[in-house]
């Protein structure tokens, strides 16, 4: 799998998934779902600041902050219910793989990166779309902000 085009922190996650057998990949996704950090208080008190990704099979909300620096570093924030571990897992991968990166780097991530996790057979293409939708939404919000 060619991951050299990806930001390093995301490429490492893709490599980790690729190195595992299919059942273990599901376990790894479960770990990402457990590791998704809770929303900071400023968002939990103001749900209107979050945007729902309706394409996900379970309610997923996300938002981002773009730093006022030369790199326009992006912080990502997700919220998904405990009973939606697959959705949370996808969010966890994006959070760890893209969080803190410059806006331009995130925009350059290929749209099909979810396919590269090697989960398509275990999870089915239909379920993978939720993750692609999250990535699409993140990119759109960055573009709308004019940061890149």
């Amino acid at each position, binding site marked *: 799998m060619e991951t050299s085009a990806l930001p390093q922190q995301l490429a490492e996650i893709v490599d980790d998934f690729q190195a595992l057998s299919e059942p273990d990949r*599901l376990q790894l996704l479960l770990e990402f779902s457990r590791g998704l950090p809770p929303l900071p208080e400023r968002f939990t008190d103001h749900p209107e600041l979050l945007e729902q990704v*309706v*394409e996900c099979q379970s309610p997923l909300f996300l938002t981002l902050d773009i730093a006022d620096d030369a790199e326009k570093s992006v912080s990502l924030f997700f919220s998904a219910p405990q*009973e*939606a*571990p697959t959705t949370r897992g996808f969010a966890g991968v994006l959070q760890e793989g893209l969080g803190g990166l410059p806006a331009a780097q995130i925009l350059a991530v290929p749209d099909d990166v979810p396919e590269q996790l090697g989960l398509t057979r275990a*999870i*089915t293409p*239909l379920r993978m779309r*939720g993750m692609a939708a999250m990535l699409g939404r993140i990119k759109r919000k960055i573009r709308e902000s004019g940061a890149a």
Partner: protein
Amino acid sequence: MSVATDSNEKFDQYAHPERLVSTQWLAENLGTPGLVVVESDEDVLLYETGHIEGAVKVDWHTDLNDEVTRDYVDGEGFARLMSAKGISRDSTIVIYGDKSNWWAAYALWVFSLFGHEDVRLLDGGRDKWIAEGRTLTTDVPQPEATEYPVVERDDAPIRAYLTDVLGHFGNPLIDVRSADEYTGARTHMPAYPEEGALRGGHIPSAVSVPWARAAAEDGTFRTRDELDAIYRGEAGLSEGDDVVAYCRIGERSSHTWFVLQHLLGFENVRNYDGSWTEWGNVVRVPIVKGSEPGVAPVPAWQR
């Protein structure tokens, strides 16, 4: 060998009360010889986060579908799956899952295609079990392989194909999708292009009854009277009707199929699993847009 049924006032009102068990019944019967509990969810990881003790996982997408053809597994594939899950032909199966048993009902319908006799749903599903504070475990059982016979699927009684639906006009059709899908405002669920269709709308004469109306707030099935009011009252079904239900890929409509067949006692109910992804892509089949059911075309042989 069948495990005794759960008899209670609510279930006794249904046509086939033996098709449901309550959370209390399941808690009391866990570990009974001959009982196998199956979890079937929309979310493929949910079982791994914790499940009812002893429950095995059946994933509809990966376990019940043929990998190549758009169809379910065949008799051999089903026997392999049942054997691996420790299920015998005479096991009592109780299926439960997330989202008001949406996918659990689908699994039950597929099990029924193979004529597995005693398969029931847990009323209220996973959410009710958890809401009541009942125990979950992450221990995955390793059942001993069973000898499950190779039984060929018998689709005709409960499964409709495209040609069956074309020949069904003049009989009731129930569309269980959301209003936007029914009217044609939406040709697919937003990020499901593979489940999309080139045309939006519904099958002519189909009545709209979104599937979740059959479920109460806590995910349990609505009472017999409430269900009668919805399906006989509003949707106009009557005794002896030959009914076809459909949705987008056949999963939500299997929930409605369960309600009509087992709770309300309609004897001729079929799930059209090709559903809108098939119908909305087939050249020259009739489609109606908007919120009115529209008129069923007159079949060619009647013209």
